[in-house]
């Protein structure tokens, strides 16, 4: 049984069964807390409409935050990194071959020097 579930990782162990049991307990607690919530909720009424500071709700297509708007902060912060990395991906086959040849040559030097 132990062999079936407990993975020895060398310096520790991992037992998914314990994790699943822990998650199940957390789920039961979450459902219990949910059951203590507001019971007067009426689906399909004005209660469920979004309140945007009194402004009308935009069209559905305009509400969705598109992929291009996500993580702009991360990308902006990493701008220096991306300004160097992205141009290396030229899409030019000549460059692909040059990288391959260059790495082969570099490996050969390292392997011969450190043999």
């Amino acid at each position, binding site marked *: 049984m132990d062999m*079936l579930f407990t993975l020895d990782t060398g310096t520790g162990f991992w037992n998914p069964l314990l994790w699943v049991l822990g998650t199940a307990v957390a789920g039961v607690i979450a459902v219990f807390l949910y059951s203590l919530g507001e019971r007067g909720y009426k689906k399909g009424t004005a209660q469920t409409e979004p309140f945007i500071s009194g402004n009308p709700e935009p069209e559905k297509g305009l509400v969705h935050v598109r992929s291009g708007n996500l993580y702009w902060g991360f990308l902006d912060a990493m701008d220096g990194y991306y300004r160097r990395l992205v141009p290396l991906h030229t899409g030019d086959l000549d460059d692909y071959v040059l990288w391959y040849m260059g790495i*082969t040559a570099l490996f050969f030097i390292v392997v011969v020097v450190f043999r």
Partner: protein
Amino acid sequence: MIPAFVVENSPALMIIVPFVAAFIAPFAGRAKPAVRALVVGGAMAITSAITLLLASDVYAHGTRLYVFGAQAATLAVPQDSGGIPVRIMFTVDPMSALMLVITAIAAFAVVIYSLTSERHHSGLGSYYTLFLLMVTGILGMVATGDIFNFFVFLEILSIASAGLIAFRIDGGVAVEAAIKYFVLSTIGALAILVAIGIYYGEYNALNMALIAQRMQFTLLDQLALVLIIAALAMKCGAVPMHFWTPDAYSMAPSSITALLVVASQASLYGLFRTVFSLYNITLNAACVGWLIIILGVLSMVVGVTMAIPQKNVKRLMAYHAVSQTGYMLLGVGVGLAVLDNQPLLEAFGYMAMEGGIFHIINHAMYKGLLFLTAGAIFFRIGTYDLNKMGGLGHSMKWTMVFFIIGALAIAGIPPFNGFASKLMIYESVFVFNPVLSVIAMVVSILTLASFVKVFHSIFMGPVLPEYKDVREVPGPMLAGMGILALVVIVFGLFPSLVVETLVAPAAHALADQGMYIAAVIGGGA
């Protein structure tokens, strides 16, 4: 119950069945598409069954030899051959068997998916011919014990893959991606052929075990090693030779992309087989190990950071494939770096190798699953552009569930399979060098962040007006995804069982060069 003939000849049959079916498929399609589907589906089911049968036999009884044209299938060294294994042979040890298991599961899931996802396209006769040739190439590469045969199967795989990458043409963009892949593959294959020529000139042998036994690690051997490592690292998409990967992965049909992942891992297998079984401790293990580790770290970091800004879901996933390959290179690279130091190998080297090898099978399953979900979305809305997607969770619930399983697995979230292999890599690599382990963990966090973005972009939000009529994909496509999702869950819940039965024997077989040589030279009839 299973005829002895099938068991005895399973190494040959697993190649013959898809190879013959590849050339029957176009003719079957002329009779009726349903007949072609029956031929392709049946051939793939039989191939997978035979492959799994062979793998289980190897795990139960040890390395299997299959000598083509010999009086007995295990007669590796005929009496009149001067002690040289002269014939073409397959040498299937537990490492090869693991790769066979990966190929059998992934290819079977993909064919079930493809029979529906591609049914409205033209040229399906060629499609299935090339698909089955791809499977033949992968199986041959991971089973052969002859290095020239490895080259032949690599070429079969590369040519078939290039044809399938170009399959949808797509205004010429897919053809361009295929040409890039094909030119690089051909240059890589040429480098491997030169290396094979060096071995043949030096040792008068093409059998890998015999070359390993005679290996002197001369300057020419060093050149051959570098030619093979660089070519196969490029073929598996290691940074900075990964540039073809997003182009090819994004332009191929999604079902083919899932199989391209397995194809890349067959190249990774070739790389590991070369450094461990062919050279082993004759080379400077620390030096070559660190080269592979550096390739791994670069792949992890560059792959994930290039994935984050992508707008095309398949290019994004392709960069993640590069990143995940880095984990495998890191784990096995650490094992190689301490290969000549038995105490360190015992302390953490084997564990790192097991983590890396476990990640190979895990990655094939969850990345294959993710590419199939991307294909399912394209099947319904006709775009891979994340900026044009949204709200599909309302109408494609099963696809969303499969995507979540794949995304959590690739991000290393418990209890899915990716977590178990990554944990093994983190802990063992930490003992070797803590900085490498920290980098691997940060990359995992960035992977999660990236897939949160993809999940939100595709599935969350209100139903968009343009997608209000979108429905779930047909059952067979869900079944294909379901097979891979099931493996992801089962491998995640029972990691110890998988490691003990599949992964640890593979890692030890890879590290033990003596056993590999003895199985051929000292084995035989």
